């Protein structure tokens, strides 16, 4: 069959294409976290059981202290659980002083109980996790602002180049055929 001529893309077609892609993406069901990650879950469970056996106080403190991250991991339906990845480091940073206190103390399980019954400990841990949540919520706006600025800058430069070309070569440089 003869090769068909390439049909040039009309103005606005790119936009429509993008909209179609976005719609298709929103219709796609979120990928399952199980399946491929089953092995990961198994390894994680095995690690958790090991830790429960050999470092039960740390394990208890981690389980209670990292609840915000665990919740975030559960509720984040995206391909990559970025919410959990954002909350977890700060959540862990909030928990770290108490973990260190636990590891440096002698009577470990009572220390855990003592910590878990202290409202200020909870406040520190959850505030740190909340900071992570705020970072997650605020960062797209910051990025959008930066991207907008960047696009405006690029557009300005290109418009300026076109104006200069028109000034040097006339309006025909932007359209029509080369008559020479």
């Amino acid at each position, binding site marked *: 069959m003869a090769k068909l001529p390439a049909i040039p893309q009309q103005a606005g077609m790119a936009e429509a294409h993008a909209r179609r892609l976005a719609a298709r993406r929103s219709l796609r069901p979120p990928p399952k976290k199980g399946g491929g990650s089953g092995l990961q879950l198994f390894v994680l469970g095995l690690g958790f059981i090991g830790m429960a056996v050999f470092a039960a106080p740390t394990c208890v403190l981690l389980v209670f202290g990292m609840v915000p991250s665990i919740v975030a991991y559960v509720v984040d339906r995206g391909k990559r659980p970025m919410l959990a990845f954002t909350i977890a480091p700060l959540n862990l*940073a909030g928990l770290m002083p108490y973990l*260190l206190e636990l590891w440096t103390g002698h009577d470990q399980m009572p220390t855990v109980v003592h910590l878990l019954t202290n409202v200020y400990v909870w406040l520190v841990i959850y505030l*740190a996790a909340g900071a992570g949540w705020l*970072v997650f919520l605020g960062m797209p706006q910051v990025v959008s602002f930066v991207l907008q600025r960047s*696009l405006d800058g690029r557009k300005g430069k290109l418009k300026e180049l076109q104006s200069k*070309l028109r000034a*040097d*070569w006339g309006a025909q440089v932007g359209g029509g055929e080369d008559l020479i």
Partner: protein
Amino acid sequence: MAKPLASAGSRTTSVRLHDRFDILYDVPIVELRSPTAQAFGVDDQRSVGTSLFALIADPTLPPRGQELGILRMMKHEAILTPIDFGPVDWVQDDRRCLALICERPAGGRLIAGNDQVITPWSDEEIIRRLIEPVFPGLKALSTENTTHRAIRPSNILFRDAGRRQAMLGDCFTAPTAYDQPIAYETIENAMAMPSGRGIGTVADDLYALGVTVLHLLIGRQPGGELKGDALIEEKIRRGTYAALCGEHRIPTILFELLRGLLVDDPAERWGIREIDLWLQGRRMSPKAPPSPPRATRPIELNGEQLYTARGVARALVRMGESATHIIRGHTLEVWLQRTLAHKATSDNFAVAMADVDDTGGAPGIHDARLLARAAMSLDPPAPIRYRGQSVLPEGLGTALAVAVAQKSDLRPLVEILQGRLPQFWLRAQPMQKIEHPVLMLEFDRLRRLLDDHRPGLGMERLIYDANPLMHCLSPLIERDYVDQLNDLLPALERAVAGGKVDSMVVDRHVSAFAANRAKSLDDQVLTALGEPDPATRLLGQIYLLAFVQAQCGPTHLPALTQMLGKQAKPVIERYRSRQTRARLEGQLASVIADGSLTRLVHFLDDLSERQADAQRYAQAGHQYSRAEAGLEKIEFERSQIDETSRDMGSLVAAAVSLVLGGIAIAMSLYHYGYL
């Protein structure tokens, strides 16, 4: 030809030609003037004792260009030959005219006019005073393969004061045989109009010599009271000898000569050899010419009873285009085949009817062509007769030039060429000559030339090609009598400086004249002249004039350069770069001030600059397209910005969180002394 220079000499009533000859326009020489040229006295600045006179040619008629050159080289005492010639400022007519300097014949003109009645000459006088002195001239012309075609008593001069030695007068200031009365022309030439008779052959000159002899013998113009068509009819009916001699008694000594010279069939007519032998005393009896085929029964056309094909042809021509129904009907064809029974004529007629070359034109034109072809097939030696015009193929160029110069209707002459009638005439001739194939090709070339409507070609070019000395007929410079390329630019410069031209200095005549004289002119220049784009047209004009300036000068043409340079804006705007345009516009004034068209054309149309401009323009176009694509991409990215921000924001948030968390953990570890 030397460059003409017209300036006042020592006298205020003279004009100087070529820094040598002072033409005294207050000293007219009435007895030496011809119908197409006035005669004046001449002072030669380098006089060698020869008395000279000047002929001032009628500027509306093309001189015989080729013959003029030949005659100038010949310098034969039996023929009036020009010593020098060139255009001069002719105050009397307030224009420039062609002046020809000739040696002044001491004995003046034989008779003032052809109608003048003189005392008949004796046969001995005719031989001694006319034939013997003139014959070497005719012989020399024959050797040079040219003709005089103006042999008649009123154009016979005497080179000696005693009027014993005749010589042939002016034959170069007007087209061939232009002033010849019908009596002195052969039947075929007489049928042609004066401007369309063609160069002819020596046989035509000898025929005219025969009639001149007869004139002197009887003391008045032969043919009696008959004029025009009536005389032609009489010649056809009775033969020239009988028609012109009438009842006059011809002396025995001249009888043979006249019988030999006045034979209507040129093949049977006495030639140079026969006259030479006759002058040596050898007596010959001319052969009786074969009579034309004659039908046993006549055909009746328009009330006339006609017996010969020539008679039928003439009757058809007289009837005009209404004769086409007769031509297309069966009666004439049957009469030709059965009654006239001349196979060659009926074959020719059949070819005329079925000529496949006739392809176009309005019905009227088609009928006129058919009539012309039919007439040619019935009477092949006769001229082409088409819509009131009657020309021999060789005279077509001259006829066109005269028609243009005299502002008469050109259309029939142009249609003759377009209808390939000259080619038909050549094919119809019973005796095919060696030059016919060459002429056929030449007419094909002229027709192609005519069909090419670009300036520099077409009908105007045809005129200059067919008339080598024809001056430029452009209305701007017609009065300047520009007959050489050297004079073209000075004349145009004067016209521009005199305010005669607003914008278009190269019209169709100027371009055709320049293309004819400058053979190496690039065809693209002529194409550019015909382009609809004003910039290309202007550039074509400047190129043509710059080419002429480079070939012939002069180096300084301020008015022309100024006028063309002022119009150069569209040419400059052909450059795409605004900077280049601004630079050229800035420099234009200094280039114009230089007065050189060559520099102007190089300045306006520098090839390397144009190429660079085109290249840079293409690059700019690509840059613009890339910028356009970039802008589209930006708009696309902007439409995607929410999703992108979300994706990228979550990643950045994770990274920020990781960094902050890492710092906080590190501080905790440090606090507890782990770091």
